[in-house]
C-alpha cells in the first residue's frame, strides 16, 4: 500500500453529492454511503452526509474538461480520479459521466462498470491512499470488479489503519452472508457488504408500514441534518470572522515593523550622507549645485504605501514601496523591463531603474481603464504587440496605441467563461510557446489560431516547485523564465522542468536593485 501526501487531521469527515439532480442521484448516494461504510468499518473514520459545498469529500460526475486540469477521456480507459486529502478540492472524487455506470453494485460487467467498486477505490485516494501493485487490493490502479465480501483486502486495511487507526470496539463475530451464486468466470464476484443485515420475507402491509416509517425517519434525519448544517454554518461564520480579525491584526503589526525598519534605514542613510558631506567638504572647495530640486520625501504611511508629499501639488494615489512589494505583472517590452503593481509601473533599462518611477501605467498606455486598479498580466507577443490582461478582458496595443476592436473578453482566446482573471502570461524560452496561467491551471496559446490549445488546461503542478496561484511570470533577456509569488521569485530550470532553487529569492534585490537590508542574509551566505 502507499500512503500518499497528507492525511485528514480529524476522523469525522463529511461528504456530499454535487449532482443531486442527476437521474441516479439516489442510487449514487446509497452506493457512496456503502463504499464509505467499508472504510469506516476498518478504521476510526466516521462519515456524515451533508448538503453543502463545504463538505470534505465532494462527489462529482463530469465529462472531458471539467476545470481541474485532468480531463476525462470519454467512455473507457480513465473511469474516475480523486484528490488526496486537503483544503478546497482535497478529498473530492470525480467520476467520468461518459462511462456506462452500473449503480446496483452487482457483478455483471455487461451492465456497465460497477460504480460501487470504483467509488470504493476513489474514496481510498480521498482518504490518503495511493495505488497499490497488489492485484487483490482495492487500490490496484486497474478496474477489476472484485468483491470485498465484508472484509477489506489486507493491503488496503493495513494502509487505512496505518493512517487512521483501527476501530476500538470489536465487531461481533463475522457471520458470512449466505453466499450468492458465483458466476463461472474468475473475477466476476460482487461487492457485498452488509454482514448483519437479516434476511426475511415481509408481507406487503408490514412492508408499506415499514416504508412509511423509513420515510418519516429519513425526513426527521434530513431535518436534523439541516439544523446541524445551519448551526455549523454559523460556527464557520464566527470562525471566519475571528480569522479575519486575526489576519488584520497581524497585517497591522507587520506594517508597523516595516515602517520602523524603513525609518531606521532612513536614519542610517541620512547619517551616511551627512558623514559623506563632511568628508567631502573637508577635502574640496564647495561648488554649489547649479539647480536645486526639492526631492519629494516619501515615507510609508500607516498602510505601507509611500505617500509622495509634494508641497505644492495635491496628494496623488499612494505609491507602492519599490523595495517591499509583490508584482502584479512583469514583462520585457522593447528590451526594457516593466514591473507593474496596482495602477503603477517601474521601468528598468540598461542603466537601472529610471528616475521618477513608479509612475502611473496609464501615462504610457492611456487607453487602459480610467479606474485602473491593477494589471493582472502583460506580455509582448510575437508580433511585438503589448498584451494586457485586466479582469475578464485583454487589451492589445501597437506600441502605446490600442489596436482596433479591443478590449476583448478572455473567451475570445478560447478561455472558459468561468475564468475571472489571468495570473501570468509569458513566452517560454525553452520552446517559444506562449502560456497563460490562472489559479491551479495553465493553457498553451496558439499564435496562429489566436486560441488556446484544445487539449488544455493542464494542472500547474507540471511547472514543478512553482505552486498554484502565482502572481506573475516572464522570460528575461537571459532566456530564462522566472515565476513570482509574494515578495519572492524562482528561476525555472527548463531542462529539469522544475525550479532551479526550491526556496524563492527576494525579488527586490535582483529586479529593483534594492540594497540588502542589514538583517538580510545573502542566499549564498545562507
Amino acid at each position, binding site marked *: 500500500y502507499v500512503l500518499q501526501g497528507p492525511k485528514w487531521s480529524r476522523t469525522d469527515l463529511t461528504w456530499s453529492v454535487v449532482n443531486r439532480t442527476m437521474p441516479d442521484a439516489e442510487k449514487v448516494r446509497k452506493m457512496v454511503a456503502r463504499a464509505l461504510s467499508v472504510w469506516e468499518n476498518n478504521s476510526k473514520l466516521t462519515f456524515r452526509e451533508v448538503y453543502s459545498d463545504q463538505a470534505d469529500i465532494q462527489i462529482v460526475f463530469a465529462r472531458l474538461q471539467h476545470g481541474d486540469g485532468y480531463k476525462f477521456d470519454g467512455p473507457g480507459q480513465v473511469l474516475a480520479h480523486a484528490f488526496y486529502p486537503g483544503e478546497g478540492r482535497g478529498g473530492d472524487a470525480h467520476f467520468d459521466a461518459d462511462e456506462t455506470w452500473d449503480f446496483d453494485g452487482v457483478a455483471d460487467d455487461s451492465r456497465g462498470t460497477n460504480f460501487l467498486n470504483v467509488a470504493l477505490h476513489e474514496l481510498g485516494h480521498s482518504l490518503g491512499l495511493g495505488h497499490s501493485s497488489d492485484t487483490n487490493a482495492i487500490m490496484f*490502479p*486497474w478496474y477489476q470488479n472484485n468483491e470485498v465480501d465484508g472484509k477489506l483486502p489486507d493491503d488496503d486495511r493495513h494502509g487505512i489503519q496505518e493512517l487512521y487507526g483501527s476501530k476500538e470496539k470489536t465487531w461481533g463475530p463475522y457471520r458470512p452472508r449466505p453466499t450468492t451464486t458465483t458466476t463461472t468466470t474468475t473475477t466476476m464476484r460482487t461487492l457485498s457488504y452488509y454482514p448483519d443485515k437479516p434476511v426475511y420475507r415481509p408481507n406487503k402491509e408490514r412492508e408499506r408500514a415499514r416504508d412509511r416509517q423509513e420515510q418519516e425517519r429519513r425526513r426527521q434525519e434530513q431535518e436534523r441534518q439541516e439544523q446541524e448544517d445551519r448551526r455549523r454554518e454559523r460556527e464557520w461564520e464566527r470562525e471566519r470572522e475571528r480569522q479575519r480579525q486575526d489576519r488584520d491584526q497581524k497585517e497591522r503589526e507587520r506594517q508597523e515593523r516595516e515602517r520602523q525598519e524603513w525609518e531606521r534605514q532612513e536614519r542610517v542613510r541620512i547619517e551616511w550622507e551627512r558623514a559623506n558631506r563632511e568628508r567631502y567638504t573637508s577635502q574640496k572647495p564647495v561648488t554649489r549645485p547649479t539647480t536645486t530640486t526639492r526631492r519629494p520625501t516619501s515615507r510609508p504611511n500607516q498602510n505601507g504605501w509611500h505617500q509622495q508629499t509634494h508641497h505644492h501639488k495635491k496628494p496623488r494615489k499612494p505609491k507602492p514601496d519599490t523595495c517591499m512589494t509583490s508584482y502584479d505583472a512583469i514583462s520585457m517590452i522593447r528590451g526594457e523591463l516593466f514591473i507593474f503593481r496596482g495602477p503603477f509601473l517601474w521601468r528598468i533599462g540598461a542603466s537601472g531603474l529610471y528616475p521618477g518611477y513608479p509612475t502611473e501605467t496609464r501615462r504610457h498606455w492611456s487607453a487602459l481603464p480610467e479606474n485602473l486598479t491593477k494589471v493582472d498580466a502583460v506580455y509582448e507577443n510575437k508580433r511585438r504587440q503589448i498584451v494586457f490582461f485586466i479582469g475578464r478582458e485583454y487589451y492589445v496595443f501597437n506600441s502605446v496605441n490600442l489596436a482596433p476592436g479591443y478590449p476583448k473578453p478572455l473567451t475570445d482566446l478560447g478561455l472558459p467563461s468561468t475564468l475571472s482573471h489571468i495570473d501570468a502570461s509569458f513566452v517560454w524560452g525553452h520552446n517559444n510557446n506562449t502560456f497563460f496561467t490562472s489559479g491551479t491551471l495553465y493553457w498553451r496559446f496558439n499564435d496562429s489560431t489566436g486560441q488556446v490549445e484544445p487539449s488544455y488546461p493542464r494542472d500547474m503542478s507540471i511547472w514543478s516547485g512553482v505552486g498554484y496561484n502565482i502572481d506573475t511570470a516572464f522570460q528575461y533577456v537571459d532566456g530564462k523564465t522566472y515565476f513570482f509569488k509574494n515578495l519572492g521569485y524562482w528561476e525555472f530550470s527548463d531542462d529539469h522542468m522544475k525550479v532551479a532553487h526550491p526556496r524563492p529569492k527576494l525579488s527586490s534585490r535582483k529586479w529593483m536593485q534594492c540594497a540588502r537590508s542589514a538583517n538580510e542574509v545573502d542566499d549564498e551566505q545562507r
Partner: protein
Amino acid sequence: TKPASQDDMYNYLMQFDYLPKSNLESGNLLSDEKLTEAIESLQAFGNIPVTGKIDAATARLIQKPRCGVGDHRSANSFSPDNLYHDGGYGVRVRR
C-alpha cells in the same frame, strides 16, 4: 487489441506518472533506457511479464479501464495544493 503506438505508450507513461508529466510540455527527448525503465515499472505494477518492450500484454494493459490518478507520487499530481516539490517519486511505504 490494437497495437500500442510509441506515442500512445509515451502519453500513457506520462499520464500515470511513469515519466515526468513535464515532458508533455518540454518535449525533452528521453533516452531509450529511461523509456525502457518506465515500461518495466509499468509492467511490474500491472503484474505482467517485465520485458521493457511494448508487447501484446502491455498493449492490453494500457487499454484496460482504470483510475485516472497516477501510480507514483510525482510533481504533486492530485494533491489539493501544489507545495514545493522536487518532482521526484514519493517514497513507497513498505508493506
